[in-house]
């Protein structure tokens, strides 16, 4: 297939994928004067034409028919829970929602934009110090090879470009009342103040405060006011329209690459975007130590080779890992021998939920909302509480963020309600406005048996193997899920609902209903090439001109949404290329 590729003139940089990570890297490198070509397998998306406010609020189109998601016919994954099973392909997206087109999954995201905590970046060392080595038995949790201090400037950069709305809890070590007391010390507050809150988050925060917790506004990529970022592009204030998660934002309120980066980037004469162009592999020279460019297929089915001095792979987690496996970058991970790094430490998110039903006196107007508008507490997240004797590590971010109860999907009813007919109609009418939920987005710690590899059977339309996910929730995570869901339910009961339904995440993992699109790892960062694929600059070990950027670099997943860290890593990689790599091109960055 690749032998037929026609060779194009070379360029300085190719970037694979024009979602958050790829767009940021491309912009930062184009700003440095490099000639950048960005490749995107999907369409060019633009708020004015694709997410016009007159047509963007369409649940059938965007939620039921998943218009913004990758078509499984184009590319999908196979899945199994363990190595004894034969994986089968996902023919419709269920558990997660990979995006497609410029902006990627960052178009249909919710907008929750946490920073990870300082201890996360040396999690293995921290947990072993506190609880002993046996606490991590069966887990392959590890350190990131970087530190909070090294990450902080890049979190700040991402928050400025994305116009994040929130309230600081810790500025330079000083705790700020009303913010998250568990966050790492930040250099300054968020660029925008928090949005107003709707009824359900307000009630939750009151109840949590009464129980002694410290509720804070969830940091949000939904702008609370008009905001113009350093690239010159402007966001409008969120209108709480409720068509947020799974939709593109029509009001320029939800930060995304298409709102915050690409309008400025596409004007630059040294940047070119190639859409409907799917990258097939990263080419290496005969030494295997230098990437020579990429091979891609265009919309007409013609295959091309695009040579470049620097290759940045910044697609979604799955495609980052699959491209590395297909291109022979790094040794594929083998769970039996516990060798190899490509595909290693795949992790997910442990999503738990508590639903509250009120028989009288509550009207939540649940159609008002946005993906990241809400209040949260972090008392039961990560290692913010003492795990001694609990039999697990990790935890979750507990919060109420009503995303907007759209009419088709949002029909909360108590268990036991008939699934159709007059009783169902009566019950949905009764509880549509009288129900709320508290989520607990919890950590998922990597283990030896959860990993990514190429499927031996199923192939994509180009004849390349699909990516195979081997994953199930570990005993550690299931115990954690029970515990944090119980704590969440205590807060729920303090609100005096007539019914509380607890749904801690249970095994086995399956694809039947949506859980989270926070798929991470598989090409992780670290200080040791034996257990990681990229160094702390996202530079591939032994292939110095290849950088792989995204949530694929997370060694495990804490109880937070990943996008803030994906954005920070993109700025970190671009900064390393600009300030370090270009001084000594072709060499591993050693500082």
């Amino acid at each position, binding site marked *: 297939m690749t032998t037929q590729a026609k060779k194009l003139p070379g360029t300085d940089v190719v970037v694979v994928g024009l979602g958050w990570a790829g767009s940021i890297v491309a912009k930062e490198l184009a700003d440095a004067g490099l000639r950048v070509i960005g490749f995107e397998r999907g369409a060019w998306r633009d708020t004015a034409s694709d997410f*016009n406010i007159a047509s963007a609020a369409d649940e059938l189109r965007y939620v039921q028919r998943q218009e913004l998601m990758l078509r499984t016919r184009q590319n999908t994954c196979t899945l199994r829970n363990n190595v004894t099973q034969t994986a089968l392909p996902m023919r419709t997206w269920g558990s997660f929602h990979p995006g497609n087109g410029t902006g990627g999954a960052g178009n249909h995201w919710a907008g929750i934009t946490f920073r990870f905590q300082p201890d996360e970046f040396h999690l293995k060392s921290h947990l072993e110090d506190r609880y002993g080595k046996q606490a991590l038995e069966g887990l392959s949790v590890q350190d990131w090879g970087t530190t909070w201090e090294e990450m902080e400037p890049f979190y700040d950069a991402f928050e400025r470009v994305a116009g994040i709305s929130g309230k600081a809890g810790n500025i330079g070590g000083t705790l700020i009342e009303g913010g998250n007391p568990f966050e790492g010390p930040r250099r300054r507050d968020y660029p925008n103040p928090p949005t107003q809150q709707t009824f359900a988050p307000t009630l939750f925060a009151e109840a949590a405060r009464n129980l002694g917790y410290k509720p804070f506004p969830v940091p949000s990529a939904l702008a609370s006011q008009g905001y113009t970022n350093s690239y010159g592009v402007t966001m409008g204030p969120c209108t709480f329209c409720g068509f947020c998660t799974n939709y593109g934002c029509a009001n320029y309120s939800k930060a995304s690459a298409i709102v915050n980066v690409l309008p400025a980037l596409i004007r630059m004469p040294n940047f070119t975007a190639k859409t409907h162009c799917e990258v097939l592999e990263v080419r290496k020279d005969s030494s295997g130590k230098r990437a020579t460019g990429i091979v891609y297929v265009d919309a007409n089915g013609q295959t091309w080779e695009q040579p470049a001095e620097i290759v940045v792979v910044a697609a979604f987690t799955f495609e980052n890992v699959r491209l590395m496996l297909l291109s022979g970058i790094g040794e594929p991970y083998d769970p039996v021998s516990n060798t190899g790094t490509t595909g290693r430490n795949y992790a997910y998110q442990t999503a738990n939920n508590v639903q509250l039903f009120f028989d009288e006196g509550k009207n939540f107007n649940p159609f008002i909302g946005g993906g990241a508008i809400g209040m949260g507490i972090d008392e039961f997240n990560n290692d913010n509480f003492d795990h001694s004797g609990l039999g697990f590590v990790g935890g979750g971010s507990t919060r109420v963020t009503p995303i907007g109860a759209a009419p088709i999907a949002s029909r909360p009813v108590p268990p036991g309600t008939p699934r159709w007919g007059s009783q169902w109609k009566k019950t949905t009418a009764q509880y549509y406005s009288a129900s709320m939920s508290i989520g607990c987005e919890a950590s998922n710690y990597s283990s030896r048996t959860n990993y990514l590899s190429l499927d031996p059977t199923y192939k994509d339309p180009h004849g390349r193997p699909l990516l195979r996910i081997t994953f199930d929730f570990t005993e550690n995570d299931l115990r954690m899920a029970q515990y944090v869901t119980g704590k969440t339910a205590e807060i729920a009961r303090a609100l005096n609902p007539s019914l509380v339904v607890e749904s801690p995440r249970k095994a086995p993992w399956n694809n039947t209903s949506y859980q989270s699109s926070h798929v991470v790892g598989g090409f992780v960062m670290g200080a040791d090439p034996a257990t990681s694929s990229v160094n702390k600059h996202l530079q591939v070990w032994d292939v110095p001109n290849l950088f792989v950027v995204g949530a694929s670099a997370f060694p495990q997943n804490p109880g937070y949404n990943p996008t803030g860290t994906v954005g920070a890593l993109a700025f970190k990689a671009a900064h390393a290329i600009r300030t370090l790599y270009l001084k000594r091109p072709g060499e591993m960055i050693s500082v």
Partner: protein
Amino acid sequence: MKALILSSVALLGSVSLGAHAIGGQDSYELVSKGRYIATLGDCTACHTVPGQPLFSGGVSIDTPFGKLVGANITPDTTTGIGRWSFEDFQNTMARGHARNGKRLYPAMPYTAYTKVSREDNYALWAYLRTIEPVHHKVETNQLPFPLSVRLNMSVWNLLNFSEGEYQPKADKSAQWNRGAYLVQGLGHCGTCHTPKSLLGGDNDSAFLRGGALGGVTAPDITGTDHVGLGAWSEDDIVEYLKTGANRYDIASGPMAEAVEHSTQFWHDQDLRAVAVYLKDLGEQHERPEPLAAEQPVMSVGRAIYEDRCSGCHTPNGEGIAKLFPKLANAPLVNADDPTSLIGVVLAGSRAVSTEAAPTGPAMPAFAWNLKDDQVAAVLTYIRNTWGNAASEVTASEVGKRRDALMKQ
């Protein structure tokens, strides 16, 4: 662009301008100046089809009288202006007479360009000589008979055209005079913003007081309150022309093109001069009384506004700077002629994307889900709320505009 300048300079060595052979550093400065003048005059708007070679012509210009097409003004000797002398060019700019005395139609705004100094025309000419010649035949005159008879223009000129370079006013500052020179001449602002007579000539007594052409209303851009730029500061005007957006408004439609191709590249001191001049124009007159809020049409309009418009333009009509135009006290909203407003609601519009403000937001079309009387009601409400006051918009006005848009 850089490459263009270099090749231009190289080319100049071999180009003779009659008695005015130029070369070396002088030519570089002259050509640079000419290039800026071409930007000031927005020559590309009518003479370059996007994606085609610079100034090779072919842009279709719909006038109330029929179709005209922008000429090829590259130095090609058969299809461009390669055989022209500077005097031919000067005649074109100053008198509307092309080479061999052929009379131009005023879609080529010689009625404005006549104000341009001979010196500036010379620089522009020098620059145009450096453009890559493109062989591209353009039939500029596609008017129906008898308008296609160019000789008619001599009569038209007699009635509508006063020839002559801009003459500075001694009682005004140099800055004011520079602004007047740019606005009246190269900027040819009056082409859209000055009302036209039945013959298509400028109504000079209402200079820049707002015009209508091709279904678009160009607002009053004098310093007049209410319908003009009275509320805008000089800074607001400069920001608008430089970036396409300010705290009040964001350019769309034909003005978006003017900003995109021309004004965003004007020097700051020139934009400042324009602002000083415009703010000094116009006369204040009594504001009309707004329609009473209790009128049924206002209640209907308010309900539609809250449901369909307030999400972006905000409940109090203040809008969001650089993104969603402010409707309160907006000149275009208060203009006597609501044609533009009707068109924007029915067909939507896309704002300009500039270097300084790249977002380029859009207004959606509502033709498919608002009826004529609903569009009329919401516009009437907008035109008579938050300090606005203007005539009621009728359903038949909306219907006419809708019919015209459907034909396009």
